[in-house]
């Protein structure tokens, strides 16, 4: 009905402008990576990619250091995902299905932790990590990143479990199943999409994490890609084309996964914020 007023054409133009603005910077990374020096530093702007130079991505991947960064990021992100999901599922289940003393406090604490900046906690965490010999290691980063992913993951999963009818639990319990069995056999299969969304959020919160990674890891060989890519800023030795190629290799996994899981991720993020 509304389209009659605005007109489909006008709406299409508006949508195309919005999409252009949304995609252009990432597209521009791609165009820049493929541009020759003459084009890049010339006086005219060339808006189209030069596909004859696609080898710049191969060269970026042939650089052992870049591959090392990406592998380190992959390890940290995968570890954070597994740990935060493993801890978040029972917490979400308890918050959704049980009444107990201190429940409100736990819910409030989960919301409260989401406003703590990493830059604030990095100093005391550094001291703790030094004492337990967790500095300069990927598993140390996994532990730190999980602390920030876990509250969001738990709230998403709590929201999802809230949506599973309790009759199913009750029926299984009447049949003699104990709570862990109910959780694993009945509830988890039903909330699989929410678990996937929570996993995407946890994975990329660790993939993108910078403050802990730059503070806790000293060895160049253990740096994740966030620190590696940020290290290009202000550096003069690497060509802008290579920097953009590496930046794009670091960006694409996040963009692809979010496009794929977008609906769940957005509803999960707000569910966590609304329901507590």
């Amino acid at each position: 009905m509304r389209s009659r007023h605005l007109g489909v054409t006008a709406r299409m133009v508006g949508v195309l402008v919005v999409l252009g603005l949304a995609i252009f910077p990432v597209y521009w990374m791609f165009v820049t990576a493929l541009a020759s020096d003459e084009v890049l530093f010339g006086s005219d702007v060339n808006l189209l990619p030069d596909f004859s130079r696609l080898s710049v991505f191969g060269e970026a991947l042939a650089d052992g250091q870049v591959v090392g960064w990406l592998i380190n990021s992959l390890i940290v992100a995968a570890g954070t995902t597994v740990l935060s999901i493993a801890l978040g599922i029972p917490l979400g289940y308890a918050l959704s299905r049980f009444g107990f003393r201190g429940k409100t406090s736990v819910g409030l604490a989960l919301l409260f932790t989401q406003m703590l900046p990493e830059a604030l906690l990095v100093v005391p965490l550094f001291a703790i990590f030094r004492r337990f010999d967790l500095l300069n290691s990927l598993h140390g980063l996994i532990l730190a990143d999980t602390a920030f992913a876990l509250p969001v993951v738990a709230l998403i999963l709590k929201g999802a479990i809230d949506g599973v009818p309790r009759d199913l639990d009750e029926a299984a319990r009447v049949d003699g199943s104990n709570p862990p069995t109910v959780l694993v056999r009945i509830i988890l299969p039903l909330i699989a999409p929410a678990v996937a969304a929570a996993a995407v959020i946890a994975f990329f919160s660790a993939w993108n994490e910078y403050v802990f990674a730059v503070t806790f890891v000293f060895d160049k060989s253990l740096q994740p890609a966030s620190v590696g890519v940020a290290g290009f800023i202000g550096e003069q030795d690497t060509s802008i084309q290579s920097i953009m190629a590496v930046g794009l290799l670091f960006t694409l996994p996040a963009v692809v996964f979010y496009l794929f899981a977008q609906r769940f991720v957005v509803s999960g993020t707000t569910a966590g914020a609304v329901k507590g």
Partner: protein
Amino acid sequence: MNGRKGGSRLMARSPASEGQPTSAPTPSRRRRSRAVGSPWTPYLFLAPAVLYIVVFQLFPLVQEVWLSFTRTTLLNPNLNVWVGVANFQSILSNPSFQQTLLTTLMYVTACVVGSVGLGLVVAMLLNGKFPGRGVARSLVTVPWAAPGIAVALIGIWMFNPQFGILTRLLKAVGIDPGPSGVLDNPQMALGAILVTTIWQLVPFVAVVLLSALQGVPQELVEAAQVDGAGRWVIFRVVTWQVLKPTIGLVAVLMTIWSLRRFELIWLMTRGGPSGSTRTLVIDLYAQAFDSKQLGTAAAIGMVGIVISLIVIIGSQLVARAAAKEA
């Protein structure tokens, strides 16, 4: 319904069962709820995660609170001299910290207004019927999915003083950012950071508002049209009423996220030039790692937390008052 079979155990529903189609909680049910299994069962489920959050978030936070009342340097972090509220007195009376507060206020306000306003426009655009709607709704989220580090990288390149495409664009419309570029121009750096931030936030807001827009009852819109109401009236009377709670929620989220945003600003400007993009978190990090004053840094962090808390509690009060009115 399995009411009979469940027996007294069914009475033991937790408050979390609110909103369940089957539960319809009565007052007596809501309060005294004893969960199934042993009373220890819920604690067994939540103990690992709660312990984790206590160790890795609450314990460090308590240390920061304590640090904020001490004089401590990064070079000798175990030597803490208790100074009471001196750190707070000194930052609050420091003109450069007052500038930080003002910059933070401007940055957060502009982020919230810009992202919610533009997000609403984008959501309304995407809410209609047009070919390729599904693809458009996915592609529009690209900025939100891109990692902050990559966004900073491309931002720096697009604002490059000589070859950046946005610098060329600005010059083409007659705005000269000067030889060292937009990000090094005290009048323009905050604007550039804001454009980059809002670019990244708008898709998130738009997608959230889009799903709220689907809850606008079409019968009401059509009835209003039959009565000859204009588009603006329909928006104000119908659409806006449905969107209001969601907009409130998103605005709070944007506020909290913007108060703690770090990488984007730090990597693009490090808080400069001449402090024009120095928000609370940037100031906190610089105090801890550049000036090595952990006590002052902690005090700055506490100011940020208090502001966040005020925003959250204030929004809860407003939401509650609005719910009562309705």
